[in-house]
């Protein structure tokens, strides 16, 4: 009898719990689930943005085209986008990971609470700036007559040298990395600071009593105990970098060449929105989705094997 009553309460609670979940479920199905399924479906068709005619079924045609080796020579091909995405991701997330960790350790070790708060806000501010404001700031810097050339030339005593921030293919890729780094470093610093705060201070006290130096504390205690956060941040940073779009869009609309920075998301935008090939763009989205899914699975696998116990 008591068991029956207990089950009744559980059922009632579950029902209420479910009701609370329904709005987010609806939101997810409307804005995430439907577009994902639709993109997957559309990727098998020759769907054009403006055409009202039923799209022709292509099977794997769009995918075959994306990976067609005969198109690889074109700098605007999807294979080149994979290269550009890989270069950008590696070139951005590695410095993001290392420098955000070092900054977090530095900020966490500051004695003054005010200085801590100020630096956290200062680093995080770019992350909340709109793309338009960010574009304006960086165009002032990267204009050949802009601050970028002035600063570097003053620092290196090389008057009149144009460092071709948006012209040279290598410099253009570096420029996108610098902008992205500036915009998101604060976000990852905050994540690391949260991770550092979760390490029990007693461990540091014990290490200090045992005579460990600052370097030893970092390498032997902080870093090993921070591994779950490091893994989380590295995968998050990698996924963020794979989704990069606004930085490349901003440079392109300000006259920078497309090929060096034609990352997958940007290629999806050009193909789907400018060129109107929605089927082809959907196939690109599915490939990107699979790539990101694989990395997410890797995240789950890695975090499981990296559980830390104090």
């Amino acid at each position, binding site marked *: 009898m008591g068991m029956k009553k207990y089950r009744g309460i559980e059922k009632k609670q579950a029902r209420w719990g479910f009701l609370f979940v329904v709005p987010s479920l609806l939101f997810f*199905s409307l804005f995430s689930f439907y577009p994902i399924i639709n993109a997957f479906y559309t990727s098998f068709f020759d769907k054009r943005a403006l055409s009202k005619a039923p799209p022709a079924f292509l099977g794997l045609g769009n995918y075959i085209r994306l990976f067609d080796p005969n198109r690889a020579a074109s700098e605007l091909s999807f294979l080149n986008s994979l290269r550009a995405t890989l270069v950008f991701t590696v070139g951005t997330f590695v410095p993001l990971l290392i420098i955000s960790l070092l900054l977090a350790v530095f900020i966490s070790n500051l004695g003054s609470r005010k200085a801590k708060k100020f630096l956290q806000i200062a680093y995080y501010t770019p992350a909340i700036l709109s793309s338009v404001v960010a574009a304006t700031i960086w165009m002032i810097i990267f204009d*050949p007559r802009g601050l970028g050339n002035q600063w570097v030339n003053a620092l290196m005593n090389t008057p009149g040298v144009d460092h071709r921030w948006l012209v040279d293919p290598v410099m253009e890729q570096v420029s996108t990395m610098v902008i992205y780094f500036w915009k998101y470093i604060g976000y990852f610093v905050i994540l690391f600071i949260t991770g550092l705060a979760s390490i029990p201070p007693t461990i540091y006290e014990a290490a200090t009593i045992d005579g460990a130096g600052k370097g030893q504390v970092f390498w032997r205690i902080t870093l090993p105990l921070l591994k779950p956060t490091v893994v989380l941040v590295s995968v998050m940073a990698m996924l963020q970098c794979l989704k990069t779009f606004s930085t490349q869009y901003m440079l392109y609309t300000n006259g920078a060449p497309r090929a060096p920075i034609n990352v997958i998301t940007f290629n999806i935008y050009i193909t789907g929105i400018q060129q109107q090939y929605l089927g082809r763009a959907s196939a690109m989205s599915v490939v990107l989705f699979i790539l990101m899914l694989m990395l997410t699975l890797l995240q789950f696998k890695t975090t499981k094997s990296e559980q830390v116990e104090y």
Partner: protein
Amino acid sequence: MKRSIALVLMVALLIPFSLFAQGGKETVVDENAPVTVQYWTHEDPARTDLENELIAAFMAQNPNITVVRTTQSSAKQIELVQTAFAANQGPDMFNLPIENQYAYISNYRVAPVDYQAAGYTDKEDLLDTYVEGVLDTVTVDGEVFGLPLELTNWAIYVNKKIFRDAGLNPETDYPKTWEEMAEVSEKLVIRDGDILIRRGYDFRYPYYLTFFVPMVEQLGGELISSDGKQAIVNDDAWLKALTYMQEWGPSGRNLGSPTYKNARKLFDLDNNDMAMAHSGLYQQGRIAEDNPEFFESGEWMVIPYPVFEDAVRDVAACYYGHFFMVNEDSDPNVQKAAWKLAGFLLSHGEDYLTRGGNIIQPTKALFASDTLKNMPYSDVFINDMERSHMIYYGANSAEIQTQIRYAVESVMLSGVSPQKALATLRPAVQEIVDEQ
């Protein structure tokens, strides 16, 4: 419980599909019922003031019609309209540059003009109102699908002070050929090492269909052959035009680059950093707005579009049109109201020219009017229009422009040879033409 949860889950997941499947268009069943016309257009402050005034007058005359005017920047407008149409949620009335707008005709997304609603007795009356050939662009199978909000061509604005500062006489030393353009620019530029502090002239990137294709045509080349089948005609012409751009860029004579600030905007400010810029008659309104002192100073003039010394054709920069078009999927009553609105707005051509952003609506009456003839340098624009033609337009003209941009900028900025750029451009454009 499990069954009910599964049921709710299914409903939750199916709701979005049913929402998107409906398309969500309102249907007006009563012809006399109030209708709302959603009108999307690009930003232009001077035109906004005039159109708000005209729309208020239109709504006063037609109390059952409400007009909602929405503006976006030119670039964003192109994407928003397309995305809205792709989702079957396009505006009732809109305008875009014809190279972007033609795809709406070829994909049957816009309705033919309702002549009576727009204020014409019939099609002949409409054709007779406009300059010959202008409506050919939007005529398919004998049906007219748009009314021109503006027809624009670009000539070259010159800052006389900068010419004199460089020891040149603007009245006689202005460039007539592209070769002279490079030579004169060389005299006008001020450099700090590699960095251009003052430019003589710079192109209007990335509108390559408007200014670059005519340069190729001057040399005897064509973008698409006259039968519409072959892309990139006459390699020599294309190579010479690409080489010219390569020499113009930072790896050549370093006279300009797409990565510098927009020449047209700098020109208005008269800050001794831009001697010549490429723009339309409408630029006069913008100079007057941005820098009235410079506008009134008489220190600027407009010169024709140059040609190459060995040009085989005298072609000026292409003209392009923005057309009012009406959504084929809108309710018939809304379509009628939209054409009525378009006709009403276009009956104020002189207002658009004088206080609506200096835009030209190509009616015979306006071209014959003293108002147009008396505008500063309007003769240069009209003469250039006579030696010009409509920009290339087709279902995929925007994509072709993207490919030309890639070719030109790869030779200017990325060190690609003109031969290699042409070898990449040709199959890319040919593929687009074949798919068209």
